[in-house]
Structure formats: structure tokens, C-alpha cells
């Protein structure tokens, strides 16, 4: 039984300048205990997907047009708002990208953690506060700093507080939206390690949103590559890293500087992410794809399973496989 199953989720932002197709019918599922990496460029729809699962897409202008989000076999999109509030922060929590702005500047941090405990556990105020201090201790913040305000903490410490809030009610699913992007590289590793440890300790499943393939390699079991609001390739960590199939994923790997050899120039994917108000016809990636054929400009590729658990949206993956030896991609 899957913990989370997303089916054909479609989210658009209906703005005055046009209809922004942020998420265009994505489907994936994850098992209990899994860590799924959601990878893509800025604007690929990763964060919108996450907000969609939380049902926190700002409305207006955002609107979940169709789809199902089955969490523990119940459709979150069909739930009334009051039911949904009982799930948020309790069964599903979220860590946001920027710890600098994610905390309320006029509230003590222990109170910010205690608030979510009190909301979902039914404990009274002083017990919630005690739990909050324990939780802060777990993420490495000494209890005597609980009475401090967010501005008295560094970025990494603030992210720890955010993590404490997210994990305070031991959720079944944790959505981490680029949790380390705003942090220094040295602190990134510490925060990721801590999140991994806590995930193990609490048995939490996690969706990790990132554009950093290095982080994915370190933490994820499954990977979904997103492009223009669609999952273009989905598979196990091994599938994605060793059996890379989609031209976009190949492009992503090629744009990384290899650690083994000395290169002067990076090889970026040419072109830009398409305008989400006016997506290209056919395969959204075709204007940037080096293997683009006529069919690609006309017909959007279906999701095809190429090996158990590894699926891809590309018309020519078979030919590609013959043209490009996989081993070369892996480097």
C-alpha cells in the first residue's frame, strides 16, 4: 500500500497575464519510508506540486484543476478544509526554502514549535512547551535558547527550528522544499544529515525538492525529474543515475562539472525553460532537445515504462539508448 499516490495533478495560476500552467498532470506514488527526490530547474513546478499536496496553493490566483492526491488511501483534494487542517503539520508537514523568512519574527521560537504541538496533540500549554523544548533539543538547539526570537539565530539555526516545527508531531510525510538552498555549503551537509537521521528515527517518508543532484544522490531512494510541470523521468536512484534515459536528464548530468577530469567549460542545456503561459506544442522539451524529431513537435509523449519502476516521457528513448551508450552518461 502506498503512503502517497498522486494522480494526474494539474495546478494552474489564473493571472491577468494569462493562464500559467505550473503543474500539468503529474502522477507518482511513494511507499512508506521512501525518500523521493523531486528535481528540476526553477519554474518546473516543484514547489507548486508540494503546495498542492498540502493544499496551500495560494488561491487566487492558484487553482488545482484536477487530479487526486491519495494519502493513506484518502483523497486530500476531496477533504473539507477543516479536515485538511488536522492533517497539515500533523500527518504531512513542510519545510520551506528560506529559513530567514519562514519564522514569525515577533514570536519566541519555543512558542512557535509549541503551537503546532498544542494544535495537534491536545496537550495543554505548558506540556506543549515542554515538548517543544525537547524537540528543539533534538534538532540541536539548547533549551535555554527557546525563549529567543528568530532574529537572534543564524540561518542554519533557524532552519533547525523550522525542522523542529515540521517534525514536532512526527508526521508520516515530510515535504522539504529546497531545505538547504539558502544555507552555506558547510551547513547544508549538517542540516541534511540531521534530516536524514530524524527521518530514520521517526520513520517519516520524505519528498525532497531540490535542483542539486548531489543532494539527491546522497539522500533519495526514488527520483522524479520535472520539466515544465511534468515528470519527464521517474525511477529509482540507480535508474536515474546509471540508466539515465530522458534527454533532459542527460542534459542535467552533462551540465555538472565532472569531478574526475579538468574541464574549462560547463555544458549547459541550451535555451531557457519555456514560458509556462505558452508551453510549446508536443513535448515541452523539444525546443531544447538535441534529439528532437518532427514527431516531438506535434505529439506530447506518453509515460512509458522502460524497466520495472523506471518510466519516461520521450518518443525516442529506444533510439537514444542505442545512440548513446549509457556508460558515457554516468560519468
Amino acid at each position, binding site marked *: 500500500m502506498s503512503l502517497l499516490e498522486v494522480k494526474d495533478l494539474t495546478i494552474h495560476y489564473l493571472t491577468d497575464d494569462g493562464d500559467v500552467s505550473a503543474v500539468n498532470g503529474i502522477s507518482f506514488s511513494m511507499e512508506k519510508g521512501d525518500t523521493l527526490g523531486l528535481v528540476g530547474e526553477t519554474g518546473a513546478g516543484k514547489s507548486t506540486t508540494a503546495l498542492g499536496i*498540502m493544499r*496551500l496553493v495560494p488561491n487566487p490566483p492558484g487553482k488545482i484543476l484536477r487530479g487526486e492526491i491519495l494519502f493513506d488511501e484518502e483523497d486530500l483534494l476531496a477533504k473539507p478544509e*477543516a479536515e485538511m*487542517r*488536522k*492533517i*497539515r*503539520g*500533523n500527518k504531512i*508537514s*513542510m519545510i*520551506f526554502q*528560506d529559513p530567514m*523568512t*519562514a*519564522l*514569525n*519574527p*515577533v*514570536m519566541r521560537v519555543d512558542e512557535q514549535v509549541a*503551537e*503546532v504541538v498544542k*494544535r*495537534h496533540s491536545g496537550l495543554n500549554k505548558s506540556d506543549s512547551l515542554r515538548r517543544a523544548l525537547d524537540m528543539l533539543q533534538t534538532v*540541536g*538547539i*539548547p533549551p*535555554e*535558547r527557546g525563549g*529567543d*526570537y528568530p*532574529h*537572534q*539565530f*543564524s540561518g*542554519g*539555526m533557524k532552519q*533547525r527550528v*523550522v525542522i523542529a*516545527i515540521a517534525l514536532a508531531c512526527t508526521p508520516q510525510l515530510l515535504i522539504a522544499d529546497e531545505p538547504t538552498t539558502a544555507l552555506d555549503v558547510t*551547513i547544508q551537509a*549538517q*542540516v541534511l544529515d540531521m534530516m536524514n537521521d530524524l527521518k530514520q528515527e521517526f520513520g517519516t517518508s520524505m519528498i525532497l525538492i531540490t535542483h542539486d543532484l548531489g543532494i539527491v544522490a546522497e539522500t533519495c531512494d526514488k527520483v522524479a525529474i520535472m520539466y515544465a510541470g511534468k515528470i519527464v523521468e521517474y525511477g529509482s536512484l540507480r535508474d536515474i543515475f546509471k540508466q539515465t534515459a530522458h534527454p533532459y536528464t542527460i542534459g542535467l548530468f552533462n551540465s555538472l562539472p565532472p569531478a574526475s577530469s579538468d574541464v574549462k567549460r560547463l555544458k549547459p542545456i541550451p535555451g531557457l525553460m519555456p514560458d509556462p503561459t505558452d508551453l510549446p506544442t508536443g513535448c515541452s522539451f523539444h525546443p531544447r532537445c538535441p534529439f528532437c524529431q518532427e514527431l516531438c513537435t506535434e505529439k506530447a509523449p506518453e509515460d512509458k515504462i522502460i524497466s520495472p519502476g523506471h518510466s519516461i516521457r520521450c518518443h525516442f528513448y529506444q533510439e537514444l539508448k542505442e545512440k548513446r551508450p549509457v556508460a558515457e552518461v554516468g560519468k
Partner: protein
Amino acid sequence: MLKFVGRRVLWLIPVMLGAIFIVFAINAIDPGDPVSALLGGSYTQEQYDDKKIELGLDKPFIVRYAGYVKDIVTDGDFGTSYTTKRPVSTELVERFGVTFKVAVISILIAIVLGLPFGIISAVKQYSIADNAVTIISLVFASMPGFWLALMLMLAFALNIKIFPASGIEGWKSWVLPCLASGLSFIATITRMTRSSMLDVVRQDYIRTARAKGLDERTVIVKHGVRNALIPIITTIGFQFGILVSGSVIVETIFSLPGLGTLMMTAINNRDYPVIEGCVIIMAALICVINLLVDLVYGFVDPQIMEQMKGSKKARRARHKTMGAHAL
């Protein structure tokens, strides 16, 4: 904290000296003559000179200024009114209460109504309620206070006789003056609350609060309003100053015995000591309000509180713990 307040109170001294100097200077260069105003139409040169010496106006400007300040500091003596011959301080004490009462009630009305209106307007942006609130507040914000006062008087004192048009006879007399000065401030506070809240509800910490599963009311009231308060408090402090100095208009229209009417009469009679006394009281009141506003900032925002405390000890202690547990 005490140090902060102490420093601010010390700052009052140069500000007040400056304020007194400015009123004194204006009175000195102002074309009217208090001596001829007091003596009426016909008088001899001798009578005129005697009166001038009696009022102390024969002395040079700087000497008069210094003497005036000295009397205030040593005896709390603001001089004697030229016209009523009573001490100015007594007059000020009598009149101050009325002005202060009108100002405080108006501000309270404005806060009690303006704050919720602004919040609703921001939370339900572009809804019918928001549009209605916006239109009504624009109408009141652009309406001159004296005109509104006259219209209120016309409507509720002359046509429907429920409130008195002038003077003070019980609580009813306060209703119209307070409405006249409070209504436009409701509008100002509503507008300020709306824009401040609109800014706050887009912040990340509001999203965090929602992601905790809190209900919308808690999100807005507990996490939103307190963060939106700083500009609103600034506006309230500012409005208070306008109310006190603008009391001249409302008090004149409703014939209330407040500072405004006292100052008006004094200006007409060239009663210098009274004018000076009124201006000093108003200036001092505005300074005190500003100080209060700054203190309230501290209670609303812990970061400002910290700057106000600004003690090196607290800062050092914090650095220590931060160093020990820094990431």
C-alpha cells in the same frame, strides 16, 4: 530600557527650548501689537508706554525669552494672561482636559473600528466588503474635518435633535465633536491597516502558520496582526498629534472650552503668554506621544526592544551562546 527612556526625556529639553523660541520669535515679528489691542481705540503715548513696561514688552527679545524660560523652570510660571489677568498655568490646566478627552476618544473610536475594518479588507481583498470599506474610507479621508463637523451638527443637532450643537452638558455633548474628529481617522487607520496586512499575509511565516494546520482566524490574528502593527502605531501616534493641534477647528465649531478655543481667543487678543503656553503644552504632549509610540514599538517587535535595551552585557551573553552552538 530606563536608559532609553531617560535619554529620550533629556532630548525633550532642547526640543522644548526650540519650540518656545519659535513661538516667541513669531510673536515678536508678528505685525499685531498687544499693547494697543489691550488699550482699545484711544490712548495717550504715556498710557501706551506705561502699559508696555507693565507687560515687560520694553525689554529686548532675548532677555524676555530667557526670563520666560527661567520662570517656567524655577516656578512652573507660564506668565499671566494679558486679558483675564489669571495665571496662564491655571487656564491651561482647566482647558487641557477637554482637548485631551476629545483626542483620546476619537483615537479610540478610530482604533476600535479602523483596525477590524482594515483587517477584513486585507484578508478579503477585492471582495464586496473590501470595496465597500475602501470607498467609505476614501470618502471620509478626503472630507475636510470642519465640513464634516458642520454636516454632523446639521444632521444630528438641528434636523434630528438628539445631540447638542455646542457647549458641554453631559456625555451627549462629546458625541459629535469626537465623531467629527474621529471619522476621518477611522479612514486613515483602515487604509494603513489594510496595506500593512496585505503586506504581511504574503509573508512566508504566514504560510508556515498555515502549514501548521492552524485555523485561518489564528493565522491572521496571532501571526498577522502583530507583525502588521508597526506602521499602524506610527499612524496612530501621528494622528494624535494632528488631533491635538487640529483641536482648534472642532472646538471652535462646537464651542468647547478646550486648548484650541483658548489659543484662538488668545491669538485674536494678542495675548502672548497664553499663546505661548498653549503651544508649549501641545509641543510637550506631541513629544510624549512620540516617546510612547517608540516604547510601544519595543513591546510589539522584540528586535526593536533589543535595540532599546541595547545593553552590552545582553549582547555579549548572546554572542557567547551563539558561538557555542553556532552552526
